[in-house]
């Protein structure tokens, strides 16, 4: 499994990295950390590369790299990287233009080979999507501001658009808490079923509690929703995982947001709606991400398979 974590140096991004690091550690995942810097005109790329080389000669970092270094420190704190505390170890850094269009920061001398620090330049959404696509990641973790009050209902458009457009599963991390309590949402679709399995797998690795939520849009359909919840529970039971079941009636996005207040992470399948329908009506996952107040994991099938299982 390959995880990509995006940072812009803000506190919420650091919280996201902390969580992602924990998850990656439990799931034995490869980790890349990406920071996107503002775009520069390709016209002066030659001179910029020169300037960067010179900065290296002065032992200076360009702004943005400090975010990556900070992220790396967090991961080390968590214990994701095996840093050998040698006395004479020196961390020398060199920039290299990677084949995939990003600049990669090599931390020579540290034995954290599983961690790559990547730097891209351009528009954040475009670059995160491109990195996801080229790097063949299974999960992207994007932090988002979790405001209180009026601005609580506004997620940075970067997180929102990445979750909508990425080719793999996306975890929008806002208001990350230390304890874990997963809320698995099901609507009976195949994707939701997959989402449950993935969510359950993650929850088990993290030692978290689990609740299955099924929402009926009308009161008459409540029986059907309860049946879906039971089916999800059965799937989890086959994996040897215990979960509570819950059925609510109302508009799915509102009910999920309401229920999520008592939980820490919402897991749901990506919307199957067409682009046109999404444009006019919005999709349930997007609404939950935008108006909800807890982290959301949107599970998506990547080229026909979901490869979020841990590699043991």
């Amino acid at each position, binding site marked *: 499994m390959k995880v990509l974590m995006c940072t812009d140096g803000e506190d919420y991004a650091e919280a996201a990295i902390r969580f992602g690091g924990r998850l990656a550690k439990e799931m034995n995942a490869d980790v890349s950390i990406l920071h996107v*810097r*503002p775009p*520069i*005109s*390709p*016209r*002066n790329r*030659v*001179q*910029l590369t*020169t*300037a960067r080389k*010179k*900065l290296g*000669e*002065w032992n*200076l970092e*360009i*702004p*943005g790299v400090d975010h990556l270094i900070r992220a790396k420190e967090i991961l080390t704190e968590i214990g994701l990287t095996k840093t050998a505390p040698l006395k004479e170890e020196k961390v020398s850094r060199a920039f290299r233009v990677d084949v995939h269009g990003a600049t990669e920061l090599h931390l020579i001398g540290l034995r954290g080979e599983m961690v790559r620090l990547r730097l891209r*330049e351009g528009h954040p959404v475009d670059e995160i999507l491109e990195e996801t696509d080229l790097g063949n990641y299974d999960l992207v973790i994007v932090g988002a501001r979790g405001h209180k009050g009026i601005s609580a209902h506004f997620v940075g458009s970067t997180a929102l658009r990445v979750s909508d457009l990425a080719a793999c599963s996306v975890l929008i991390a806002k208001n990350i808490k230390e304890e874990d309590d997963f809320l698995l949402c099901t609507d009976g679709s195949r994707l939701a079923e997959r989402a449950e399995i993935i969510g359950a797998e993650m929850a088990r690795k993290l030692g978290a509690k689990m609740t299955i939520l099924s929402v009926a849009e009308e009161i008459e359909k409540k029986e059907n929703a309860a049946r879906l919840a039971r089916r999800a529970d059965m799937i989890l039971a086959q994996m040897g995982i215990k979960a509570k079941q819950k059925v609510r009636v109302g508009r799915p996005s509102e009910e999920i947001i309401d229920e999520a207040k008592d939980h820490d992470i919402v897991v749901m399948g990506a919307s199957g709606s067409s*682009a046109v329908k999404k444009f006019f009506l919005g999709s349930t996952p997007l609404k939950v991400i935008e108006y909800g107040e807890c982290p959301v994991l949107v599970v998506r099938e990547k080229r026909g398979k979901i490869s979020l299982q841990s590699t043991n």
Partner: protein
Amino acid sequence: MTLLSKLLQKRWLFIGFAVGAGMLSIPTPEGLTPIGMRALTLLVVVFIFFVTEPIPLPGVALFIAIAEVLLGLAKPAVVAQSFMSDSVFFIMGSLMIATALVKQDLDKRIALAIVSLTGPRADRIILGLTLVSALLSSFIGEHTVAAMMLPVGAALINYTHQDWRKIRNLSVIILLSIAYGAMIAGAGTPSGGARNAIMLAYWKELFDLRISYFEWIKMAYPMLMIGAPVIAFILYRTFTPEVKDLSPAVTALKEKVMKNGKMSQQEWLTIIIFIFTVLMWMTISDTIGLGITALIGVLLFLTAGVVKWEDLNNNVNWGTILIYGGAISLGIMIKRTGVAEWLSHSFLAWAAPFGIHEGLPLLAVISLMTILTATVMSSGATVGILGPITLNIASLSGTSVIAAGFITVISSSFCFLTTVASPACNIIYGSGYLKKSDFLKGGWKLILLSFVIIQLISAGYWRLLGH
């Protein structure tokens, strides 16, 4: 969806072609030949492409060559000739020389020289940075100076405080003084920027005027000598620095450079060859051409082994050379087909009632026009497109063609407002320390002041020199 968004990204390409097709289908205005109309169409389309960049700029240069042949403006051999001239040799040679200089560790020496001269006071260091960036840039171009001085600035910032965000104002002043200093001096000598070579080419090709390297310095240097201190002063007043004493940074910087030891033989050799080349530019380039002189310098660098061909291959913006070749070619075409003449007549007919059709008012208008154009597109392209027109207007109205040329070239470096207009700003901005709004804060004051200064120079100093 993706196809649509891709097409939308390229919308200016289609708009450009649509405007072109529209212009070709309307009747030719009075005073313009049919072939002139086609050249005018090409000029407008290229202008749109230069500003909006739907394709990479070197691609626009290729488009110019192709369109000139397809529109029947000139035969292929003529087009090819107009692309490569002594001026383009000069641009190419200058870029190669700059590469050879940057490759050495000279930035550390320069940093040491600056702080040794200025001492630890922030205001004096800022003045030193601006002046040195200006002096260097006038000889080797703003791209190179920005790339060379950026680490110096970053070092001063990082040695002053571990977290540069805590001393943001000081960081902004230091970096902008480098960018602006390098920019304002781009027109200081012919080798300071490719646009200067374009102007030299226009004077020679269109008016048969020859300006020597030394004469150029005489005309253009006062602007940077006055402009650089003004920049340092305005920046210092606009952004009040948090720290006014940089002694810790200066000490750390000196230690860092001392570690490198004495200057190596290779560094000396590089400097000697460079000074020799500048001397040749000043003395014999009148007879053998600036371009050929530059190539002699490059050959010496290669022979001495201070630069490898691979370095030149990787670190020269070859696209730039193509862009300037294209700009010069287009400029020559719009003069030959009578478009420049026609545009100048139209301008003069419009401007005469306002009294801005000759002499100093005309120069002020040219300056203003150039500043506006340079803010939206690269200064080289600005001079390339505006040059033939401004020179023609001046020539028709009896104003000095030399003064008109200089004011066009010098004004094209006043693009302090945006991060994209000048290479130096672009490179400094690309370091990630600055916000776009930082450029606006001090930029508008500097545009205003630079405009006033250049008017005073043209009214006083250039008059004295007889232009």
